[in-house]
C-alpha cells in the first residue's frame, strides 16, 4: 500500500494505491477504483479505471511525469504523502510549483515585458521570442513574483533554457 500526493502547479490530489488478490485499486476520498495498467510500448500505456479505457503517454524526462491523456498533456509531481506533508510544514516548495519560465523552442529574445520583483498573473505575456519566423508571446505559467530574469534582449536561447525564475 502506498499513499501519495499528486500535484500540478495549482492543484493536488491524494491517492492510496494497494493490491488485493492481484487486483490493483486506487482510492480517492474513500472510494475504491479498480485499475488495470498495461504497458504497450516504451512510453505508452493502456489504462482501464472503473471500466473506462484510456490511452496514456508518459514523458519522465524531468522531475515528475508529463502525462499525455487523449490529446492533452499535463505535468505532475508524485510524492510520498507523508514526505509532501512534512515538506509543506517546513515551507519547502516542490519543483512543479516553482515552475521557472523555460524556452519552449530555440529562438531570439526580442522583447522583455517584466522586471525583477514584478508580480505577474498566470498567462500574462512576459517575453517575446522570435522563432520559426514568428513572434511568440511567452506567458507566465503561474501567478507569482519574478525573482530573476536570466536573459537579455537579443540573446539567442536554446530549447529548455531557463528564461525567468520565480521567487
Amino acid at each position, binding site marked *: 500500500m502506498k499513499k501519495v500526493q499528486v500535484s500540478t502547479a495549482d492543484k493536488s490530489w491524494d*491517492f492510496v494505491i494497494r493490491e488485493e488478490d492481484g487486483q490493483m485499486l486506487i482510492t480517492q476520498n474513500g472510494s475504491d477504483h479498480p485499475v488495470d495498467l498495461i504497458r504497450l510500448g516504451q512510453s505508452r500505456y493502456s489504462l482501464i479505471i472503473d471500466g473506462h479505457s484510456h490511452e496514456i*503517454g508518459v514523458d519522465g524526462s524531468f522531475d515528475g511525469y508529463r502525462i499525455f491523456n487523449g490529446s492533452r498533456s499535463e505535468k505532475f509531481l508524485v510524492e510520498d504523502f507523508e514526505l509532501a506533508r512534512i515538506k509543506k510544514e517546513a515551507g519547502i516548495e516542490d519543483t512543479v510549483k516553482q515552475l521557472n519560465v523555460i524556452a519552449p523552442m530555440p529562438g531570439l529574445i526580442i522583447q522583455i515585458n517584466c522586471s525583477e520583483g514584478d508580480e505577474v498573473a498566470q498567462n500574462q505575456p512576459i517575453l517575446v521570442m522570435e522563432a520559426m519566423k514568428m513572434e511568440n508571446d511567452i506567458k507566465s505559467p503561474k501567478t507569482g513574483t519574478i525573482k530573476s530574469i536570466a536573459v537579455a534582449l537579443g540573446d539567442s536561447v536554446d530549447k529548455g533554457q531557463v528564461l525567468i525564475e520565480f521567487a
Partner: protein
Amino acid sequence: MMNEINKILIANRGEIAVRVARGCHNCGITAVAVYSDPDRTAFHVRVSDEAYPLDGITSAETYLVQEKIIEIAKSCKADAIHPGYGFLAENAGFARLCAKNNIIFIGPSPEVIKLLGDKLEARVAAIKAGLPLAPASTQDIEDIPKAKIEAGNIGYPVLIKAAAGGGGKGMRIVNDEDSFEAALKMAASEAKSAFGDGRVYIEKYIARPRHIEIQIMADTHGNVVHLGERECSIQRRHQKVIEESPSAVVTQDLRKRMGDAAISIARATGYVGAGTVEFLVDEDLNFYFLEVNTRLQVEHPVTEMVTGFDLVKEQIRVARGHKLSFTQEDVVQRGHAIECRIYAEDAAAGFVPCTGKLAAYQEPAGPGVRIDSGFLAGDTIPVYYDPLIAKLVTTGRTRETAIKRMIRALNEYIVHGVDTTIPFNLLVMENESFVSGILSTHFIEDEFPELADSLSHSEEELEISAMAAAIIDYKQHSKITATANKRAETGSPWKLSGRVSGLRKVW
C-alpha cells in the same frame, strides 16, 4: 505540344511532399525527394522512389537553394519539378531557372507568377478583368473636405490606410464622419513616422468578413474551369487553420458569380495550372477580390473530397500539355468536407510551436476520414520548418455529418510527445456558432476571448491523468523494489557471470 514526364522532383518536405509523391505514383511517375540533414529519415524521403541530399539544415541552406535543386533535377534526369506550396512555389525566378534548364516547372508561367505575386499589379489586373474590389479612394488624400465626401460615398465604416504601409501601421477604422478628421491626421502622422511617407487613402472597411476562395484549373488549350469554393474564415495570425467546402453561405448563384470572376482573372492573365482566387465576403454576401495564389493550396483536399478530382494528377496532365480531364459541367460538389490543420503548437499559450519526438503517433481512420500527414510514429518534428504535422479531412453527405466525424476522428487521434492543436480543433467543432455556420475571420477572438481558459483540461480529465501518474509511479517503484529483492536472493548476475568465467579459467 506534348511533354514527356516520367520523373518528377518534389522541391518540398512534410505532408505536401508526401501528397505530391502520391500524386506522382497515381500517374505511374517516379517521385524524387530532396532532403535537408534533419529530414534524412522523414516520411517524404521514405515514400519517394529516389532521394537526394541538400546538405544543410535551415530552409535557407536547403529547400530554398534554387541552384542545388536544379543541379539534382538535372543529374537525376527529372523531367519536371513540383514545388508544392511555400518555399519556391511562388518564386518567378525559380520558374524561369527551371525553363532555362529545360525542366518543366509545374505551375503557371514566370510572368504570371510575378504579375499576380505583386499585390498592386494583381489589383490592377483584377480591375481590368472586371472583378469586384473593396471600394477605395482612387488616390491618396490631400484635401480633407473632399476626402470626407469620398468617405461618405464609400460608406462608413471606412479604413484609412497608409499608401506605403503594412503591418497595421498608419491604419485607422473610422465609424462616422465626426471622427474622420482626427483619425485621418493620426493615421497620416503615424504613416509619416513609420514609413517616412504620410500618404494615406480610404478603403471600405469590411467589419466581419468571411474568407472564401475559388479553386481554378486551367490547361494550355484555353480551358479554364473552377471547382467551387472553400471557406477558410477560421484563421489565427492571418493563417488559415480550418477550411471547408462548400461554404455554409454560398448559394448556387453566388458560387456561379464568384466562379465566373475567378475564371475571368485567370483568362485575363493567361493562367495555367492549379490556382486559387481569394475573396473577402461581407455580411450582405458582397464579395471583393483579395489575391491570387499561383500554386496548390494547403487546403486543396477539401475540394478534392467534394468534387472527386485529384488536383495533383490534373496539374501533371496540364504540365504534360494535355487538356483537363473534365469540363465545367462535370464539376459537381457532392456532400461536405472539412479540414483541420494539426499543428505541433500549444494553442493555449498563443499557438507557440512545440517541437519534439512523436513518442506515440496514431492517426484516426474509418468512414469519411482522409489524412495527409508528413510524419510517422517515432519521428521528430524539427524546429527549423513549419510545425504542420498533418491535415485531417472528414467528409459526409451533410455538414453536420462531416463535423460529427471530425469530432470522432480528433478524439481518436493519438499524439504523445508534443502538444498539438487537436484540443483547439475540438473546441471549434463543438462551438455553437461554428456548427450554425456563423463565421468570420475574427472567429477565434470573438468566440474565445480567453482561449487558454477555454482550452483548459476538464476536472475529470485532469483527475484521470493524475491517477495515471500515481499508478505509473507506483508500478515503477514496485518494479525497482522487486528487482532489488530478486538480486538480494540470487546475487548479482554480473557477479555470477564473473564467477563462471573465473571457474572456466581454472578448468
